[in-house]
């Protein structure tokens, strides 16, 4: 017998690993709206199976907690059951010998803390407070604009791309924009992930818009004679303007800059969203007959009083275009600029020349990636991305980070910017950073960066771009006497600024910086509520028949991803970087959709909503 032997992974272990991986995916796509009590019980069953069985709290306590949860689920529990459960969980947490036990107890404690009302509803009326249908069709539910995803995926599969675009536009007038830059929350809980991987929903949308041809807007309702002013021509304002116009209202849109699009034009670089594609959506929206005034700012070329006098309703959708400051000395030096400024210049087609320059972009979000990758295209010799946390803590999407790296951006993580060094003429010449070490997990769920006991480092740079957040401009609202709260125009969930008032707000000036689809959704909500405020009940619908699901097996099949132009080529210009799906790929990908609008509980309430 040898003293040590190499152990091979047995067949059993590899099957078990496979099952855990399946389960992991399944947990990740849990339908929204699952009963938290039932979930806690399910988790405990797994925890119990993982217990080594040595210590009492873990071996017995987990099962007893599960039994108490079962009592609650059966509607047989009372206040005492909850107290007993909490006491037990605390004892298990405090006394279990290892993490398998005390983390299991923590699940119960967190659940009791976070879902107290659900627990109480179970013991009071024997039913779950959680809505059942929130998870009926996960992709539709998770799309902020509730676009009928299974519907258009089915249409794409049938080759009916124009109908797919019409169907999307029922909920979102920016199909092209979203086909290119949507963060696709719809894919997060795609039920297909239970089997293999999420459907490439955004890729299929892109295929639809690329193959739809020109799709004219639907006929609007008869004119209502009501006049609505929309302030701000970004995704939110344009969305609201589009639907209000379809509802028969007359819409006048005021935009501060020379072109429409807001952050879609002045915030998203053209290599991600080429201008001509953005213009497609905008032209379609305007073709409904919206009066547009560009280069008009609220409080300058037009006053709130004029708007108040001339319009029946006013929508504020001015976005969030002010850059936040990093707060380090020297930030105001020459050659230090905000990412907001840099991207706005690019949007206005005034590209700066960074040839031969060393550029540091400060920040770890998507805007930082946009700025860094734009800097590459402006000709910079080296582009650093300086971030105080780890790469995995960046808020930028993984694809964006990878894209930046491929284009030559250098990530300098765990480096906290300390100050900007300037030369005698006041120009930035270096960025001083302090090395960090990941600390305890903070409230954002990420380790808090803490100063490492290493000396500060000097980064020799010519240009510094601050991408540390942005905020809304509120001065013009304040002057108009509108309520401001935490730097935002304060609005109710329906978008109305003051109860029964004619002013509504949508998009980032009322929420906070978010995604394009969130802004679109907020514009849609504002349109519906402005219509109601004006005394109407116009519903937006579309007469597109959605193909019935085919009767077929759904074998496991790999997801088709969109591809990118090779990095060495794409970094030389601002042309679109992504390559859409081929016909063959789109058909295969669309066939992966499990049609949750038909199978599962989607069908129970008639599938997708046909109007809003």
């Amino acid at each position, binding site marked *: 017998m040898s003293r040590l032997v190499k152990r091979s992974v047995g067949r059993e272990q590899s099957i078990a690993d496979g099952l855990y991986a399946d389960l992991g995916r399944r947990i990740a796509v849990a339908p929204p709206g699952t*009963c938290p009590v039932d979930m806690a019980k399910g988790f405990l069953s797994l925890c119990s199976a993982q217990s080594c069985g040595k210590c009492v709290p873990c071996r017995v306590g987990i099962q007893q907690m599960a039994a108490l949860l079962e009592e609650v689920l059966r509607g047989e529990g009372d206040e005492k059951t909850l107290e007993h459960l909490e006491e037990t969980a605390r004892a298990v947490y405090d006394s279990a010998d290892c993490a398998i036990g005390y983390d299991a107890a923590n699940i119960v404690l967190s659940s009791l803390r976070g879902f107290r009302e659900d627990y109480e509803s179970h013991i009071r009326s*024997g039913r*779950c*407070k*959680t809505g*059942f249908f929130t998870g009926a069709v996960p992709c539709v539910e998770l799309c902020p604009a509730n676009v009928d995803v299974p519907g258009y995926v089915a249409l794409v599969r049938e080759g009916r791309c124009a109908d797919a675009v019409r169907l999307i536009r029922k909920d979102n007038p920016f199909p092209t924009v979203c086909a290119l830059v949507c963060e696709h929350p719809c894919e997060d809980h795609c039920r297909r992930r239970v089997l293999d991987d999420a459907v490439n929903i955004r890729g299929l949308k892109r295929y639809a818009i690329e193959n739809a041809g020109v799709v004219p807007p639907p006929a609007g309702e008869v004119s209502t004679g009501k006049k609505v002013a929309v302030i701000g021509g970004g995704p939110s304002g344009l969305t609201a303007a589009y639907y209000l116009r379809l509802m028969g209202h007359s819409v006048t849109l005021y935009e501060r800059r020379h072109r429409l699009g807001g952050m879609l034009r002045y915030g998203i670089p053209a290599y991600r969203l080429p201008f001509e594609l953005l213009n497609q959506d905008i032209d379609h929206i305007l073709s409904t007959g919206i009066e547009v005034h560009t280069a008009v700012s609220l409080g300058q070329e037009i006053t709130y009083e004029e708007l108040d006098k001339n319009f029946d309703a006013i929508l504020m959708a001015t976005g969030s275009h002010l850059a936040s400051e990093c707060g380090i000395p020297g930030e105001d030096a020459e050659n230090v600029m905000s990412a907001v400024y840099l991207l706005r210049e690019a949007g206005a087609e005034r590209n700066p020349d960074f040839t031969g320059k060393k550029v540091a972009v400060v920040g770890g979000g998507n805007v930082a990636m946009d700025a860094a990758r734009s800097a590459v295209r402006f000709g910079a010799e080296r582009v650093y991305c300086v971030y105080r946390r780890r790469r995995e803590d960046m808020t930028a999407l993984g694809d964006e980070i990878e894209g930046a790296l491929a284009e030559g951006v250098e990530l300098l993580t765990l480096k906290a910017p300390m100050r900007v060094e300037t030369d005698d003429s006041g120009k930035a010449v270096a960025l001083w950073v302090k090395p960090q070490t990941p600390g305890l997990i903070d409230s954002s769920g990420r380790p808090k960066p803490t100063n490492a006991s290493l000396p500060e480092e000097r980064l020799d740079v010519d240009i510094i771009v601050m991408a540390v957040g942005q905020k809304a401009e509120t001065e013009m609202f304040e002057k108009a006497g509108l309520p401001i709260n935490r730097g935002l125009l304060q609005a109710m969930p329906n978008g109305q600024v003051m109860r029964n008032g004619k002013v509504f707000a949508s998009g980032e000036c009322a929420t906070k910086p978010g995604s394009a689809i969130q802004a679109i959704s907020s514009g849609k909500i504002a349109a519906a509520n402005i219509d109601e405020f004006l005394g109407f009940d116009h519903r937006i619908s579309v007469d597109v028949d959605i193909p019935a699901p085919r*009767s*077929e097996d759904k074998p496991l099949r790999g997801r088709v991803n969109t591809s990118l132009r090779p990095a060495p080529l794409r970094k030389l210009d601002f042309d679109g970087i992504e390559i859409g799906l081929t016909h063959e790929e789109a058909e295969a990908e669309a066939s992966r959709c499990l049609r949750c609008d038909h*199978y599962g509980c989607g069908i*129970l309430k008639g599938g997708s909503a046909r109007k809003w």
Partner: protein
Amino acid sequence: MVNLTINGRSVVAQEGMTVLEAASAAGIDIPHLCFLEGLNEIGACRVCVVEIVGHSRLSAACNTLVEEGMEVLTDSPKARRARRTNLQLILSQHRMNCPVCIREGSCQLKALCADMNLLKLPYEADIRRKKWDMSTPIIRDESKCIKCMRCVQLCEKVQTMNIWDISGTGSWTTVDVAGDCALKDTSCTYCGQCVTHCPTAALTARDDTQEVYEALEDPEKIVLVQVAPAVRAAWAEELKLDAALATPGRMAAALKAVGFDYVFDTNWAADLTIMEEASEFIQRFTHYKDYKWPMFTSCCPGWVRFVKSQFPNFTYNLSTAKSPQQMFGAVAKSYFAEKLGIDPKKLYCVSLMPCVSKKSERALPTMVNDAGDPDVDAVITTREFERMLRSRGVALNLLGEIPFDSPLGESTGAAVIFGATGGVMDAALRTAYHMVTGENPDADSFAAVRGLEGWKEAEFTIPGAGSVQVAVVSGLGNTRRLMEALEEGSVHYDFVEVMACPGGCAGGGGQPISPDQELAGVRGDKLWGLDKVAHLRYSHENPAVQTIYKEYLGKPLGEKSHHLLHTNHFGWDMPGKK
């Protein structure tokens, strides 16, 4: 056209048909349970699963569309095994006290299990229960619910009331009153359509036969029964009685056999209702500006509950005439008691109705006499009557036909049609016409309001009064559409008849349950047939009605009529009203 094979047989189906429909059209029966045509095709029970050759998993026949070249096996070993297992799983959560179950004879689950030759239950029973407030006329038994979701769909899609909803998640998913409240605190109209479409006894109407038996057994009580028009079209459906023998006269004899002292007819009260309601309509029509329009019929308690909760501003538009059931009770405990020379407290007034909502109408605080006693003491449904007959062993075949008792038993053809959609309108117009012109119209002049269509419109001219725009709706979804159109101003009517149940009382929530069949049309036709052959076809020609006006009431809308036969719809509130 789509060509496919089912169990090896070539079948040609229409495009868009489901496998279940195509099989059924070809004479092949696929077992199914949760399926409710056009309403609930959700593939929940997985009993109708079939094998499609080439597919690794089974498909639900109820919502899989036929495709060209499809080869369907409805009874392959795989399909059969899964179907049996699914039934056994359903049974593991179904409290099987079949011998004492109210749906013993009409349970779809039981019938299906019998067909499947299920002889054992391999799973441990997991029966879930839930407390229920028994004060409402509709009762839900969690332990019987198989979560087919039919009630949820029907209440939402047909009746648009959304009283039922899905509750809970995961394996705890069940059906419950929407919005975490008790049924008595909702706007439920108690139409009972959920009851007649429930495959099991999860939803039932409260059984009040025990109270009736107690009254029958009480030597001090004189027990009378009134029978609603629609009951006579359906009472023997589930009994072993030749349909040709199921006449109103034999029904009256059966009621006598059960022990009722007097067997009267709600039809008599229906004729009386027409006298009051037609007079009221003429009164309003000839003083058009003084009233809100249209005038609505008020005989359906489900509708009255609906309008009071959903469109309360239209409560003013309801005819103030009581329903025939309540007119009958009021007259029985006054006029008839006087005729007998007895204290009305000795009378026990039962009504036999095709309706569940009548159980709640009877109990309204406004439906009492001067002594504070209810005008109607108990309401039993057609189904409860059937059960009484069966439990008493009444030998129906040996019974002859007898007339209803006098004086509250005489009636006309205009009364019997109250049980079918359009009937009240038809009858009211016949008498209104006579009241205005002094002449009878042809009894079939108003046939445009008949038929099963959910929302009917017609215009009639009454010489001397002018043109009258009428509408007839049945089913609360249709009613809601009509009410919304009225609110919007896109339609205008003078007189509207509303029945909460699709097809009117013939399809009422208290009628016998025939799984997978909608019988309102067939039953309604029987009622129209009775009208056709009736000796009298105008309510104002009912001699017993003429007599009561002469002897007791004076004239329609007179003081006594007002006191006995009319009601204040604002005298009680729907739940949740502030």
